[in-house]
């Protein structure tokens, strides 16, 4: 126990401030009122679905929970069931083998629900594109509110995309406080 405490004390707190929301990441106009978004923004539950990624984006989503980004410190946490989730974070082009699972996960979520597509593949199909086995971008399968480009997008960009989705139109570009 003493070694663990020493390790913690030696390290200190390294959490950094997140970037502001960025309205240019929006794929759809905000669908919910400012009141709803303000509520979600303070205690957001996210369900992640990998719909066919190379697993690079998953590494960066993991990183959003490391002590530097500390996503949970913003009141945002990942949950195990879509039924507990306000937001769906989707990575990858959507493989045809994951299409139904993605749709069913989305349908299982209660309203109001938000969708953020992560990475170049989620935005436009990326290097994999649309093939006999891939449906391409996430928006080809379910409605997407915010799309975050990058291969993979850095953790700060992912958090920015999440904050953008819960920021109301009038505050877009200045939220994330």
């Amino acid at each position, binding site marked *: 126990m003493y070694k663990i405490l020493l390790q913690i004390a030696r390290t200190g707190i390294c959490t950094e401030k997140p970037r502001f929301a960025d309205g240019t990441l929006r794929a759809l106009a905000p669908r919910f009122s400012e009141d709803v978004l303000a509520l979600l923004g303070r205690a957001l539950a996210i369900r992640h679905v990998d719909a066919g990624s190379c*697993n690079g984006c998953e590494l960066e989503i993991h990183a959003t929970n490391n002590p530097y980004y500390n996503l949970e410190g913003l009141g945002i946490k990942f949950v195990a069931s879509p039924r507990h989730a306000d937001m769906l974070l989707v990575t990858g082009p959507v493989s045809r083998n994951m299409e139904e699972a993605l749709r069913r996960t989305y349908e299982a979520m209660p309203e109001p629900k938000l969708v953020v597509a992560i990475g170049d593949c989620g935005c436009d199909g990326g290097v994999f594109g649309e093939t006999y086995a891939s449906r391409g971008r996430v928006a080809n399968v379910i409605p997407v509110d915010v799309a975050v480009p990058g291969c993979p997008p850095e953790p700060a960009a992912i958090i920015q995309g999440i904050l953008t989705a819960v920021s109301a139109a009038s505050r877009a570009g200045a939220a994330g406080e």
Partner: protein
Amino acid sequence: MSLEPLAGAMPAWRALCDPAQWLAACKAIAASGGRLGALWASDERDTHGGLSAHALLVAYEGLLWLELPVADSAPGYPDLSAVFPCARRMQRAAFDLIGLPALVPDGTRPDGRGWLRHGAWTADRHPLRRDIALDERLPPGDPRYGFVKVEGDGVHEIPVGPVHAGTIEPGHFRFSIVGERVLRLEQRLGYKHKGIEKRFESLSLREGARLAGRVSGDSTVAYAWAYAMAYESMAGVTPGARALRLRALLLERERIANHLGDLGFIGNDGGLAVGQAHFSRLKEDFLRSNAALFGHRYLMDRIVPGGVAVDIDERGRKHLLAEADGLGAELRSLRAIYYDHAGLQDRCINCGRLAPRTAAELGVVGIAARASGHAMDARVYPGFAPYDEFIPRLASHRNGDVAARIVVRFEEILESLRLERRLLQGLPAGALQAPFAEPVSGARGVGWVEGWRGEVLVALQAGAGSRVRRCHPHDPSWQNWPALEHAVLGNIVPDFPLINKSFNLSYAGADL
């Protein structure tokens, strides 16, 4: 059967064979301690008029690429799963994509269920055949799948996935259990199949490098190197000494970053959340160094055919040496915490054991093999430049449990840090990219690189106009996924996430 040597960084030969030689060669190599590296099929109706089955065998002498041409009208080719059990899923995938079945002597398939197809297309269509377009809309097939039923008093099933409870890749696990104990685990993968092999065939050889680096994102350096090695081998190109050293530096950095991440997650799944906090912090520091010095946190597209796309200067060299010292010290202190923590040790020791004999029978590779008593590592044997100069010290363990896979990771990070220091000493001057002559149509090359998870193989064939005619990238997860089915037997269901994490296999890499 005549062997034709393939030029390149690794000792490799290629041979055309008939069905009897196919089976005899595999049996001979298995009997002399060799294993199956990869198996795939190709549509050759435009060359020899039929289809071909391919096997990449790993023998002591090097790689043997066997090609068995089969007439389109022939019923199939001899099944290898009796010789190499790991062939089974590869054969099922090859059938889904090309329509060439592996047959046992009575003329039936050892397992007739689809593997990659699911319901995305019908059983009579084979999308890797050349008369099907890359973006063809194939009519959906029957998505049902016959899991093996375990029956008896008190046995019940737990279906898990494809969408899992955490931020992980999709796949389905079907547990048959009694009480809390696992009687059987059956995996069903292929959810991420997105047509990578077909996509390769729409690209030039040079464009293929970027796709190769995205077969399994966590192993992007290993794939990029293996692809470059295959391409260079058929083009007769040898990268310069500085480029090779930088490649090794990038590969060791990929190994360190992934091991740091895994040690954190294993600690977390074992109930030591503070371990996760520290390892994820160390990994983040490390990735930021990558971004600052090489322009990408995961080093994607930094290895290119002919050499590397990055260089390092004196300031960068000093930064990495200081980082290695700091990380080494942090690691030793965290290692003491992990090894002394009674709760974590209780969860990990004897948990998820993969016996050395089972590992050998299943052809397990990489970390999982080394943690189960098998001293194999392509960097060491047969070894490839620059590792012939910088020979890694192998880390291995005999217990084959979660604890052993933790030990191997700690030791491998420390060893990679030692290699990093040595690679950075007296870095030779020279070109970063060698001049490139495009290979002739039909040329073949192989790449074989020890990534952080295990060996990554790439078999590549050039087409006309420097296009990819066929590319099969092979992930070590093909061999290691079935081993996980064995490692969980007799363990309790709540230990599965911990055992799974200790293997940390790629779904994307094997679903293609």
